[in-house]
């Protein structure tokens, strides 16, 4: 019966990949509509019902564009870099439990791909790989703007990776496990956001920096760098960066859901629905921030990361440990 398990795995993979990419593509439309609402505009509402076909129109447009490779670019790296961004975002989802699991033909079908016992470390490790996409894209484009964007991206993502990891340490301490399934199970009584509000805030800010979204979109700062590391990209390769960025938003949203909001747990509705709802909270906050906040200067960004977020995260870890010793 190994065969059946294989088929189920394939179906699951296809379904989740499809759902993730579709949701990411729709997130572009949702973002444009929401951003417009924040600016008392309407946003794209022409293609289809309230503009619901806009992602497909954009997709067709972007597919028909010429795929330019600038002169002097390192062709192979230039062509591979978008794939690194998109793949690392998708790979993160492997360890995320997105539902309760059910029984099919006498087999237990868990709603996740693999329950790594070091799942959280895997998440932190893979999300760092995305830096390579940004750096290599900036380096291989043979353009000053791209290079500056790539360097900024590297510095920013490495610094904020640190506070991201540190903000998750208290979660591990409270759950007593690195496995994402165990972390969700540990939140059966209450979600960790109630006891770790500071951790959640640090996680959220680091998330913005990780996804290099405004106000932390220093690597692609349109006003100064024309688009940063993806200045030279066109056509579907640019589309891949774009989809990667939005998949990244979703994955970071699902991580927030798993680590702080109780994962798929929730009353009444089935687990998957709760999970999707919780996943969408972080993208909404990211879009809201994009509408609200200006972009900080590069040195301010680094100063904030190293002198504010990381010390606060460390204090948070110590405080959590102390309280757990006292009461636990």
């Amino acid at each position: 019966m190994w065969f059946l398990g294989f088929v189920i795995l394939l179906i699951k993979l296809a379904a989740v990949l499809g759902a993730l990419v579709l949701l990411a593509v729709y997130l572009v439309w949702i973002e444009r509509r929401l951003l417009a609402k924040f600016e008392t505009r309407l946003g794209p509402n022409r293609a289809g019902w309230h503009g619901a076909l806009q992602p497909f129109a954009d997709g067709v447009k972007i597919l028909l564009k010429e795929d330019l490779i600038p002169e002097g670019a390192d062709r192979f790296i230039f062509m591979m870099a978008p794939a690194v961004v998109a793949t690392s975002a998708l790979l993160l989802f492997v360890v995320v439990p997105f539902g309760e699991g059910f029984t099919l033909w006498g087999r237990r079908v868990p709603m996740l791909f693999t329950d790594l016992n070091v799942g959280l470390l895997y998440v932190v490790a893979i999300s760092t790989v995305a830096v390579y996409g940004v750096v290599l894209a900036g380096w291989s484009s043979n353009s000053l703007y791209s290079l500056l964007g790539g360097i900024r991206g590297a510095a920013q993502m490495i610094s904020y990776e640190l506070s991201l990891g540190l903000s998750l340490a208290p979660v591990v301490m409270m759950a007593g496990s690195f496995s994402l399934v165990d972390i969700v199970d540990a939140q059966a009584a209450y979600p960790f956001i109630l006891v770790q509000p500071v951790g959640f805030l640090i996680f959220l800010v680091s998330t913005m920096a990780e996804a290099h979204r405004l106000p932390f979109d220093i690597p692609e700062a349109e006003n100064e760098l024309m688009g940063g590391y993806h200045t030279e990209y066109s056509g579907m390769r640019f589309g891949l960066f774009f989809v990667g960025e939005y998949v990244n938003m979703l994955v970071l949203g699902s991580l927030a859901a798993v680590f702080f909001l109780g994962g798929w747990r929730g009353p009444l509705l089935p687990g998957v629905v709760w999970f999707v709802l919780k996943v969408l909270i972080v993208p909404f906050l990211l879009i809201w921030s994009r509408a609200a906040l200006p972009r900080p200067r590069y040195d301010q960004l680094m100063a904030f990361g190293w002198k504010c977020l990381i010390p606060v995260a460390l204090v948070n870890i110590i405080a959590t440990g102390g309280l757990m010793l006292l009461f636990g």
Partner: protein
Amino acid sequence: MTRNKPNIWKYSLSAVKGIYDAYAVSMINFLRKPVTEEYPEYKRPLPERSRGRIILTRDPDGDERCVACYLCSAVCPTSCISMESAEREEDGRRFAIWFRINFARCIYCGQCEEACPTLAIQLTPDYEFCQYEVLDFVYEKEDLLVDHGGRHPDYNFYRHAGVTEKGDKGAHPDEEEPVNLKSNMP
């Protein structure tokens, strides 16, 4: 270092307040009704004097106002007006045999309307005359000429200018009676 150190607490507080205000303001805007006007469904009524498609008007008697003086053509910054003048057989009145405006070049500045002594050329609020072919933007006299007076329905250049082509001396609006040379009464 003699520089004053900023008060860290005041500094942080103002930072937090700034961020909070930004989020609050954008949320207030989020809940407001969008101000966008959706164009093909809703067409904003334009003011009467807005500058759009150009017309050539007629005077109250139904004659063409344009006297083919070339003033509009001379003043036009994009040189998009051209015409050829002629005189009418019966009374020698000048008119344009052909009159052409290339709307693909017109910038709707309204200079031609300012320059025109007879109020013949006028800009109208109509702006919806897009074409797919650039040559379709070349409007001939038949396309430009309308049979009304535009914004100045009562104006007749020849009467106001006191030219005797129509009516006798003293018959024009705002004209004084001709001086009677045979009388010395004031």
